[in-house]
């Protein structure tokens, strides 16, 4: 379906630090590596620094120390628009004044791609996202699940080498979330774009991720394959955080959050 394959690149963070208030750095000396085409899930409590870290990688915020690399390139000081990453925000952040087609076409329009190529690419993505027939729809008329698929299509439009997802399913109800999770897994198998996913839902992390990074108070507690984290937790925190009862609690917590929205 996708005529030109994406070229996935690795993401490497070296001692990345971001300080808003000196007493409690939001991100403190985080180093991690994501292989090309792999899916990394970042988990941790609220305020652990997950979103700050994602924003640093996206170029929406700048690190106070450390460096960020995309493949062999140092992108630490590169503005967001030149990084060429796909980003999906929790609250969709779609352009309300544009229809579905133009939302997905936006990254191509600002790159001055030829008209015919844009039409072809958007049609391709609409099909991939199972949004055929939605091209002329107003964004306000979409359900949450549809809006998030449009946001994902927009992020994928310029064939990014890396996809950053900030709790993409956090605002959706449980059933839609489960559907989209299955579907994201299939999509990732097909596209193999390097993906960093923030999630509160540990089931989601264990279900989708090649690697899981556990953050706590701005520090990286542990990063590893899901099975290794369970069998060889590096710290008591990781063990407690990932314990079956904690996972059950986290699940019901996520459900409560979703039902409240």
């Amino acid at each position, binding site marked *: 379906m996708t005529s030109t394959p994406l070229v996935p690149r690795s993401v490497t963070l070296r001692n990345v630090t971001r300080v808003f208030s000196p007493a409690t750095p939001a991100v403190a000396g985080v180093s991690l590596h994501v292989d090309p085409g792999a899916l990394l899930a970042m988990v941790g409590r609220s305020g652990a620094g997950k979103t700050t870290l994602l924003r640093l990688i*996206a*170029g*929406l915020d700048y690190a106070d120390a450390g460096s960020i690399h995309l493949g062999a390139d140092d992108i630490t000081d590169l*503005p*967001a*628009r*030149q*990084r*060429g*990453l*796909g*980003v999906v*925000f929790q*609250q969709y*952040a*779609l*352009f*309300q*004044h*544009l229809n579905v087609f133009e939302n997905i076409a*936006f*990254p191509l*329009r*600002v*790159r001055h791609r030829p008209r015919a190529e844009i039409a072809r690419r958007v049609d391709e993505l609409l099909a991939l996202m199972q949004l055929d027939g939605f091209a002329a729809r*107003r964004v306000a008329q979409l359900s949450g699940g549809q809006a998030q698929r449009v*946001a994902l299509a*927009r992020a994928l439009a*310029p064939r990014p080498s890396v996809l950053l997802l900030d709790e993409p399913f956090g605002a959706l109800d449980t059933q839609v979330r489960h559907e989209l999770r299955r579907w994201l897994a299939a999509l990732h198998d097909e596209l193999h774009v390097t993906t960093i996913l923030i999630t509160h839902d540990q089931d989601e992390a264990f279900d989708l991720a090649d690697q899981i990074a556990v953050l706590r108070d701005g520090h990286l507690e542990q990063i590893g394959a899901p099975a290794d984290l369970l069998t060889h937790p590096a710290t008591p925190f990781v063990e407690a955080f990932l314990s079956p009862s904690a996972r059950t609690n986290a699940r019901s917590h996520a459900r409560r959050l979703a039902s409240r929205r």
Partner: protein
Amino acid sequence: MMSTTRTTARRRPTDDAPVIRAALIALAIATFALLIAAPAAIVLVGAFRLGIAHFAHAIADPSALAAARLTLVVLAYAIPVNVVFGIGAAWSIARFDFPGRPALLAALDLPLAVSPVISGLVFVLLFGARAPLGAWLIAHHTPIVFATPGIVLATVFVTFPFVARELIPAFASLEISVDEAALVSGATGWQLLIRVTLPSVRAALISGVALATARAAGEFGAVAIVSGNIAGRTNTLPLHIASLYNAGDTTGAFAVASLLVAVALITLAIPTRWASDR
């Protein structure tokens, strides 16, 4: 969403009692009819009182045409200036916190608070023949006062708040994450402004431009001071209407006034339709 069709007919808990509702609507309509619709109708009746020939004569009079042309020229300068500065001021106030912000916010209301006559006097004091700057400009053959530039300046001053005032709440309500989505999508700052920010505040911008246009076309006080009332040269439509009226030509005054009323109605009606098409 689903239940709206069922509940619209029923009374909602927040609704006022039918009597109060009827009274409020009647009051609004009566006020509108007495203070706005009736005067506008009287202008039209007055304009055609002596027949269509007299109306056409008053409109086609060279000084009336010159006044209409000058009003259009003033609009052609004042509105673009207002749009550019209005967007700039509103963006700064809505998005940044800087030392002069409260002062700038207060200054935006100044043209609305100060009598337009005083606004006009300020420009005469600044650019008149007795002021050093004015004398220098006159010596270099670019008089400001009693000429078109002064009229444009006074009009810009008086109408400045409209675009900015409409845009400040519109800019403030935009979500930062939408801007961020545009940036990570590869948009430059300029593309963000043209493709996302301004289209998102389109309704407010159109409404501000409409109000500014209507006010600019109708401005009397400030313009009367700076123009010097030279018939055929520095008379705008409102000034021309006033001189017709002062000369005792009531019908002529009403005829030209009906033009201005038409301009105002068109400026206000078309954008309302445009802005609310969604």
